[in-house]
């Protein structure tokens, strides 16, 4: 089990006025983040959404010191990411799953890939074996533990990546567009697994995505647009501002869109439905 952070009331991650620019070919710079401030509590499930070029991946890479802020500060469990001595301590606290499942699996055998992180941490072999067994089982991968990664389905590969990160027992897992290359079945499997981690193991989850329907499992949503945090609130608060959201290049989940259209012709919902089930519940009362 990941180390429990119960009792610690400090936010797990604090961003203070973070600026970051990328160098571009001709010697210039492109501003990717400007003035981002954000606090993420322990055990939260936060979705960070934004369209292409909104800076969401850049933000994600700041959370475990893969990128360092140009201005401002990032604190992870009280550790400043810009202090070089903290880097490895930060990375064992914040694990990261990337978009392309193929390019983050290192070993030629699935179970060895799960062992990769713990081996880097220098854990004793017995402990590594225990963790590998536990997390493979948790992500329903025990059956494929001896297979090379290239023979797994997309969904299985991404769950393997999650298992590999969890085996380091981090406090927080950041998933950077983890479903972009998956089919609907793989996407569902992965999101369910991640939700379970958050609810049962109390791992803090930060999901980066451009699909708002993937946010329905999270408690909080942060919207990024042109490098700035433009909205931060519960899903319902954000979905209620459809026009603003669409202005940022995002679209509401289809169920919410349908609800909006029904509202326009005289139906009303006490609160905006986020899923089809909520929509149907709300409609039944008005139809019968």
């Amino acid at each position, binding site marked *: 089990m990941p180390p429990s952070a119960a009792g610690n009331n400090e936010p797990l991650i604090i961003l203070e006025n973070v600026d970051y620019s990328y160098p571009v070919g001709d010697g210039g710079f492109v501003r990717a983040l400007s003035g981002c401030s954000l606090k993420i509590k322990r055990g939260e499930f936060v979705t960070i959404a934004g369209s292409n070029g909104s800076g969401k991946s850049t933000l994600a890479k700041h959370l475990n010191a893969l990128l360092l802020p140009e201005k401002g500060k990032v604190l992870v469990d009280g550790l400043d990411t810009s202090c070089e001595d903290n880097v490895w301590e930060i990375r064992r606290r914040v694990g990261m799953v990337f978009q392309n499942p193929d390019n983050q699996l290192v*070993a030629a055998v699935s179970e060895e890939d799960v062992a990769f992180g713990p081996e*880097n941490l*220098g854990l004793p072999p017995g402990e590594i074996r225990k963790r590998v067994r536990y997390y493979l089982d948790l992500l329903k991968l025990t059956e494929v533990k001896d297979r090379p990664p290239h023979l797994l389905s997309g969904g299985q590969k991404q769950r393997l990546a999650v298992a590999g990160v969890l085996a*380091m027992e981090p406090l927080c897992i950041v998933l950077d567009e983890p479903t972009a290359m998956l089919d609907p079945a793989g996407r569902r499997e992965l999101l369910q697994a991640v939700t379970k981690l958050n609810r049962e193991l109390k791992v803090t989850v930060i999901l980066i995505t451009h699909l708002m329907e993937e946010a329905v499992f999270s408690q909080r949503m942060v919207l990024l647009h042109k490098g700035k945090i433009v909205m931060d609130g519960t899903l319902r608060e954000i979905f209620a501002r459809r026009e603003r959201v669409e202005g940022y290049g995002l679209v509401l989940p289809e169920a919410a869109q349908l609800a909006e259209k029904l509202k326009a012709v005289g139906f009303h919902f006490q609160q905006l439905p986020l899923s089809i089930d909520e929509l149907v519940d709300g409609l039944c009362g008005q139809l019968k």
Partner: protein
Amino acid sequence: MLGHIPLGQFIPGHSPAHRLSPVSKIVIVIVSAVGIMLLPGFYGLLIAGGYLLLMMLFTGGTAVYAFKGLKPLWILIAFTFIFQALAVPGEPVFTLGAFDVTRQGLEKAGLMTGRLLFLVLLASLLTLTTSPIGLTRGLEKLLSPLKKFGLPVHELAMMMTIALRFIPTLINEAEVIIKAQRSRGSDLTRGNPVDRIKALIPFIVPLLAGSLRRAEELAVAMEARCYRGGNNRTAMKQMKMGRIDFAALTLALLFLLISISARLAGW
């Protein structure tokens, strides 16, 4: 199809040979190879053959594939035989054009061909029963004393592991790129040699760009998982030597001893 080259030919199994530690298997193969080379004469060949047969009994039937694997090598074996048969001077048995085939030549040829055959079989027994990743780890362990002399043993092993991991992925990618460019009318069979080489660019550039992108992403992913070289790193799979390893090593050493004695005794 490009995507299905059986790499390394490893056949998974649970025979004693599969259960041996890769380290002892590599040592056994080296010791046995030296033994085979040292054993003189036809009796020597006979002993080596018996020894190999004994080894094969412990592979749970996997050894059959070693014989199947010999097929593509028959040209090499035939060439060895003919070359040796013609190269050695002595009592002529019959004449082949400008060459005399001698008794000594035939004997030498038989011996060399036999040895070559046995060495190939021996090596394939190793790769048939050891996964590429096991081989990598075994080599890393065996070479680790060389770290003291500055050989980057861990890095080499990591490179091999990553190569094993990515070769199938890159083969797949190459296949897709070839199809995609053919769909845009690329043709490798047109024009003079210069044109044909130029026609490779649409395939090579994307493959290279793709590999670089992968390498970059992989490096970031490895860093994110706290990879910082071989120092302070542990391994999940410890290569512990069991009783079976000691038994097998003893057998191999015994074989080497017999070979050395036979050579010294001047068979």
